[in-house]
């Protein structure tokens, strides 16, 4: 009699031709961007925020308002596509696409299972950090091309903020790279799940425990990169209307909106790969030793684990977003340059010393 595990191993070990694998990976990438975005919008933006404010949130469309998102998308798609008369039409139209493309490029390095990856990129972390900085271009383009003072100010604020917070983000990740001895995200997952803390391997070694400072800095930097409260100075509605998005309406605004929450989801995925052990479960549980001994069913369980961890991290991101008031522009810059960057440099120094000594 074949056990369920053996059966699934045989069922899943199918040979897919190269073009089929590529097609699957592209489709998977699209799902991996849009599914978290939709889930985050419904669960956190519609429901959790409403509960935190003692109201029910959307209840009409579908059971518990679960189809509200479909209604919203329908609404945005029928709205008029307004182009300001003095705007720079081509740049104005390209800007939201640049932002969304940077999100899609970002998800390309996130592994979801032993074989369920999109690209197994040697310099994965480095690539993710490089690509995430592309969205600044789109935001600057949007701010400038709108021919609107509020938009331009919002775009400039966003650029200044993203430049300032990209540094602590990169520096926080370096701690993880030192500890894992690799930049490949798949290898970082393996390093965490095969690792042990003082010889105890029942938990693996998720870097949230050993790189806690790095995790906190990374999450703060993510919050700032997403231009969300308390770092939402670039779109501060009480002074800048809506910042660089002021002139956007209809489906172009929809692209910005999807981009915002998709990026939140992808950053949550990257955070869970870097700090929470990614798709893996501690390999000691099943006696796995390396990537080749991992059972094939992890290709199905892995994405589920990833989505669970993603929801956990996204919950923290949104919780902070709905709880804290906005930083002032000078406070925001001072916090990045005078607190986060020195702290992350100290974290790198401490991690390297531990790495060499131990």
């Amino acid at each position, binding site marked *: 009699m074949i056990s369920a595990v053996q059966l699934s191993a045989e069922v899943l070990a199918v040979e897919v031709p190269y073009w089929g694998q590529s097609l699957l990976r592209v489709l998977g990438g699209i799902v991996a961007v849009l599914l978290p975005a939709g889930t985050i919008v419904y669960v956190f933006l519609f429901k959790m925020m409403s509960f935190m404010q003692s109201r029910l949130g959307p209840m009409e469309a579908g059971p518990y308002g679960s189809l509200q998102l479909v209604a919203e998308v329908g609404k945005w798609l029928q709205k008029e596509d307004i182009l300001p008369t*003095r*705007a*720079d039409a081509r*740049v104005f139209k390209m800007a939201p696409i640049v932002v969304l493309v940077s999100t899609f490029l970002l998800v390309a390095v996130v592994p979801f299972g032993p074989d369920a990856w999109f690209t197994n*990129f*040697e*310099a994965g972390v*480095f*690539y993710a*950090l*490089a*690509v995430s*900085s*592309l969205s*600044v*271009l789109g935001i*600057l*383009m949007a*701010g*400038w*091309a709108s*021919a609107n003072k509020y938009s*331009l100010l919002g*775009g*400039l604020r966003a*650029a*200044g903020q*993203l*430049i300032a917070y*990209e540094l602590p983000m990169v520096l926080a990740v370096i701690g993880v790279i030192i500890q894992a001895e*690799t*930049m490949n995200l798949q290898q970082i997952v393996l390093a965490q799940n095969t690792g042990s803390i003082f010889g105890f391997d029942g938990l693996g070694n998720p870097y949230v425990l050993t790189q806690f400072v790095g995790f906190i800095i990374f999450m703060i930097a993510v919050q700032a990169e997403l231009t969300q409260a308390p770092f939402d100075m670039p779109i501060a509605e009480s002074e800048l209307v809506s910042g660089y998005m002021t002139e956007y309406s209809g489906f172009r605004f929809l692209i910005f909106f999807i981009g915002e929450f998709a990026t939140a989801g992808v950053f949550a995925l990257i955070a869970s790969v870097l700090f929470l052990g990614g798709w893996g479960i501690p390999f000691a549980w099943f006696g796995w030793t390396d990537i080749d001994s991992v059972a094939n069913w992890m290709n199905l369980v892995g994405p589920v684990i990833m989505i669970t961890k993603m929801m956990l991290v996204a919950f923290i991101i949104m919780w902070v977003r709905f709880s804290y008031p906005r930083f002032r522009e000078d406070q925001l810059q001072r916090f990045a340059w005078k607190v986060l960057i020195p702290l992350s440099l100290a974290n790198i120094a401490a991690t390297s010393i531990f790495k060499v000594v131990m």
Partner: protein
Amino acid sequence: MFAAELLVAQNIGFAVIALLMIIGALRVVTTNNVVHAALWLVVVLSGAAAQYVLLAAEFVAVTQVLVYIGAVMVLFLFGTMLTRARIGAERDLNNPYWRLGIPVAGVLFAAMAIATVSSFGDEQLPADARVVSVAEISDQIFGPYLLPFWALSFVLLAAIIGAIVLARKD
């Protein structure tokens, strides 16, 4: 057959990207708007990154994106938008001596072409060319090339301190 040897995927990719880069580079100098010029420059620089990927130099490609597109171009745009970035065409954007640039560019191109051809000639990449891993690059940087790396770091440090000294008025 000559054509069949050239028509491999890498060569076609190279040709398409190179064409895009040339168009972008021409638009950088011919466009009448500062921000448009900067955005066309982004096209050229990302084309260079794509060429590095075709050459199996992933790390260099990512560095190109991070440094040139993520940092340098963003600072360019940031600076021009803070100071002068009107929408629409500007008339006084071209330097009156712009024609002098054409022979200079031609000489530069010729010099680089001669240098490339004379130093590599008919040499070809090994058939089993592979992606150089990041670990190997770091072994090189922090091994044989440690001294030049340090020298570069000092130059950058001096530039940073110089920028602070220039920017501080008090």
